């Protein structure tokens, strides 16, 4: 994996392939472990996050044993209470990390997220603020069906006051989550299930990545793929295939959607003059629409081709594998789309 430092003004440290190898879930776990060790005001709450379960996706494994059940708290099945409780504690300076088991379940808690967490700083004229992090697993591609497979980052992006992080590697997961926990505003942290147990180098010890800084996961000259989360490895695989066909693809991993690294997007596409925006969220009125509209507007007249978007088809996510694989973008369809541009 080539990494340029071009898009890392804030001194985003380079990947050192000598770093110990961990899963994305372990990266998440390390960030919380270090944050809890550093700051007694950090605590965790959510469903089944205590040991022996340690979270149904294992993110908090070992932490209740290490820090106790005061700071790692199982909750009832009550997402409004989970998010609201985090908000309340954060208003007086604590740094709660709440877990909403699956992103689809945000639907029961959007009032706390959108009408309260996102707005309290503004509604109080800055007298209060909400330094919470809400971790959530994102399904898709696992036959979980229509209610357990949604990527809803577009809902979050559209509400002023929410930051949104979507790591695609164990390293990014650790660095971004650490920064979310210590950020002074509400952060939605999306953990893509299909990446949770993929492995990669993770810097040991305290490690932070700035929010709002995209990373070029693969450098290229002909076409820019703007993507995040689940679709990053898919895009990298497509780029690899196309390299064999003489098409040089740059894969830009946004890593956070709010703040949005506008400069990195425009710099890359200004160079390649071709862009494809790829995401697991529904394409229609999805997150890619903002990015495609941004590129088309800012680089008007400089593009060699229309900005393409590749997201989930317009339908609830079907259960049968044979249909679900058609519902989400994946390497071959990404490659096909890129070929139409190059």
């Amino acid at each position, binding site marked *: 994996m080539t990494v340029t430092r071009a898009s890392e003004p804030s001194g985003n440290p380079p990947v050192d392939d000598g770093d110990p190898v961990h899963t994305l879930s372990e990266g998440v776990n390390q960030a919380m472990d270090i944050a809890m060790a550093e700051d007694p005001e950090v605590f965790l709450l959510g469903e089944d996050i205590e040991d022996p*379960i340690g979270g149904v996706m294992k993110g908090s494994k070992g932490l209740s044993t290490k820090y106790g059940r005061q700071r790692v708290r199982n909750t*009832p*099945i009550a997402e409004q209470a989970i998010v609201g409780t985090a908000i309340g504690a954060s208003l007086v300076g604590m740094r709660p990390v709440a877990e909403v088991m699956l992103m689809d379940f945000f639907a029961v808690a959007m009032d706390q997220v959108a009408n309260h967490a996102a707005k309290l700083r503004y509604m109080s004229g800055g007298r209060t603020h909400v330094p919470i992090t809400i971790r959530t697993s994102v399904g898709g591609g696992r036959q979980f069906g229509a209610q357990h497979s949604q990527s809803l980052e577009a809902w979050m992006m559209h509400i002023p006051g929410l930051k949104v992080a979507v790591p695609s590697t164990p390293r990014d997961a650790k660095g971004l989550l650490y920064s979310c926990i210590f950020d002074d505003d509400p952060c939605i942290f999306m953990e893509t299930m299909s990446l949770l147990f993929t492995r990669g180098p993770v810097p040991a010890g305290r490690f932070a990545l700035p929010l709002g800084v995209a990373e070029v996961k693969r450098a290229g000259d002909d076409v820019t793929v703007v993507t995040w989360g689940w679709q990053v490895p898919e895009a990298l695989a497509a780029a690899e295939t196309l390299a064999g066909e003489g098409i040089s693809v740059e894969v830009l991993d946004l890593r956070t959607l709010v703040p949005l690294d506008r400069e990195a997007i425009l710099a890359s596409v200004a160079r390649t003059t071709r862009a494809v925006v790829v995401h697991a969220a529904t394409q229609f009125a999805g997150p890619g629409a903002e990015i495609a509209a941004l590129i088309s507007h800012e680089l008007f007249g400089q593009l060699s081709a229309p900005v393409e978007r590749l997201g989930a088809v317009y339908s609830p996510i079907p259960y049968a594998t044979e249909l679900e694989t058609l519902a989400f973008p994946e390497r071959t369809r990404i490659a096909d789309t890129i070929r139409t541009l190059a």
Partner: protein
Amino acid sequence: METPGAGMMTPETSANLSDDAAVRIFRTMTTIRSTEDRIMRGLGAGEFRMTYYNVRGQEAIPAAIGEHLKRDDYMVTTYRGMHDCIAKGIPLDEMVAEMCGKVTGTSKGKGGPMHLSDPQSGLMVTTGVVGGGLPIAVGLALSSQLRGTDQVTVVNFGDGATSIGATHEAANLAALWQVPLIFVCQNNRYGEHTAFADYTRTPSLAERFKGYGMAATTVDGNNVPEMFEAAAEAIGRARAGGGPTFLECLTYRLGGHTFGATTEYMDPDEFAAAEADEPVGNYRRWLIETRGIADATLAGIEAEVTAEVEAAVASAKASAPPPPDELQIDVFADPVSVPR
């Protein structure tokens, strides 16, 4: 905990339960049990794949309730609802096919095990969102009230679902409007991996639900005659316009949260006691010993059921996955409304 089912041996509790009904209930419980056994065997052997929410231990609840329901009564259940679906009469082959994601399934393979529904048999909604089915059930029940029919609606949900807002809103509204709805809380003692006492200080769910101004009782959900009587009373009241009832049915989840999931957080002695007292075998013994039903009769039913289940699995396996052009069908009635 007091062991569910333990009280079943008292014959006086079964006054209104005819032999025919008792045997029909046995058939239903046996169908549920043998379908689960067959699915687990298939999963273990890699014969097919699915996320399976085991119902072992909870068979008696829907089997006893189902005896009082007509085909046009409505039911809503959850991901852990295969037993409810079977008791309400979903065609077994279509159900298994759906769980396997096949085109002959109730949803053409597009819904999956968490979304079984078949209006023909009155199974209206299976939801994967905890608590999500309860407000919908209020609407189903309201439709019967507005239309002046004597239909009732049964909504099944777990003990853990009592903590979520939708459940509360539905209970208050159902009581206010006195709709013909039975809230069947299948208290299997765990919400995913969390035990009852770890998510609420409520001493009794039935007491709590009385607070909405509706009838509410706690019943041994593993005791068929007791379940049968409690269901008769609640459903009878609803049909007669007497409004909703909350039934807390005490049972026990004889497994992890899903097939293959850990049970390490469950008290082993408690688990062993519940397993020793598991409702299907328990009820079978009771039918023979207390009700004098011939073992051969029950064995005959078991043989028939095994064959039915095998046939359902075979037809599911033989069925094709949904064709690609199904992807954007059933989004709207009218495909041209789908944005390109």
